């Protein structure tokens, strides 16, 4: 299916070949740290290195993905894949993104009898989590850089962070609340400059 460019859309949609999409999403799928690790790699590939998407667009797609009743990164892969190459892009992006993890999960499941009662998984867990934390921190800093100055947007950042940590509100609800509050209080306001 070919990409349909909406006349109302102010930004022309960028494109990548299906092979390039596969490479980008395969690399992203190699990231540890769950969805945020994958997002960090996507940010590096699409925003920093290839300059295919602006930071803000990727952040918006991720926010919309958080509101979908599916895995967040699944929705992001579909959205970005569609932006870049239409329906075929969604399939390639999804397959490439889940392939590394899927193969690892199945291989480790086959090895269940050997690994279930040993220390290997604990060792991997103990060393991967801090590395994943590094990716999450870098990703949050890069995507949130324009917001890190005194502004109403920054208040939203802090409020969302606090509400998820304590009292532990559902992240999807917090983001939805941020969207509603943004529609009420951020409309027509100047955006903070990076």
């Amino acid at each position: 299916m070919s990409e349909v460019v909406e006349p109302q859309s102010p930004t022309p949609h960028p494109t990548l070949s299906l092979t390039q999409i596969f490479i980008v999403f395969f690399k992203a799928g190699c990231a540890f740290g769950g969805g945020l690790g994958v997002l960090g790699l996507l940010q590096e590939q699409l925003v920093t290195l290839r300059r295919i998407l602006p930071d803000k667009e990727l952040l918006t797609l991720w926010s919309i993905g958080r509101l979908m009743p599916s895995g967040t990164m699944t929705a992001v892969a579909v959205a970005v894949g569609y932006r870049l190459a239409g329906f075929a892009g969604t399939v390639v992006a999804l397959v490439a993104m889940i392939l590394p993890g899927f193969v690892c999960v199945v291989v480790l499941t086959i090895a269940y009898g050997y690994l279930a009662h040993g220390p290997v998984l604990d060792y991997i867990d103990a060393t991967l989590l801090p590395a994943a934390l590094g990716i999450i921190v870098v990703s949050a800093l890069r995507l949130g850089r324009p917001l890190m100055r005194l502004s109403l947007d920054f208040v939203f950042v802090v409020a969302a962070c606090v509400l998820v940590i304590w009292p532990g509100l559902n992240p999807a609800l917090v983001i939805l609340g941020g969207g509603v509050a943004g529609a009420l209080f951020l409309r027509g306001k100047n955006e903070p400059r990076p």
Partner: protein
Amino acid sequence: MSLFQVFIVIGTYNMLAFGNGSAVVALLQHRLVEDSGILNLNQFLYAYALGRVTPGQNNLYLASIGFMIYGWLGALAAMLSIQIGGYLVLPVLKVYDRMREVGWVQGAIRGLGASSVGLMFAVGFRVGTEAMTGLIPWVVFLSTLALIFLARRGMLVGMLGATVLGLGLKFILPV
């Protein structure tokens, strides 16, 4: 439980959880372990643990559950069931593209973006409180940042390099 039921149960629970991975775990554990006894608790917890130590999204552990029940077909059915829901984003994207210039939509998108960044920091805080429990985790964390920012090796190399360093230290040092 038939292969089709595996597909439906995993896909439905994944969508019902609405962004809350812990809820999926609770629902599946109740259905597959306590109710039907298809998996024992050790198998279930092992599958869940794989989600943390393998690359990609956390919910890929569902492939392990599918594999334990129906082999490769089960793993593929589980993966397919959790990917299909992602296509719900396409109509939302269409609406967003049509309305992105409207004032209140721009405000909403800014609010969504800002709260998403806040959420990332919250997740970072939670992972940090869980992971940073000794010398080696700090070495791994700081090495990741150093490789990304100072050595400019990219995120993937930074993460894998620091992890290998951490594993080496874990075997060498008794901490």
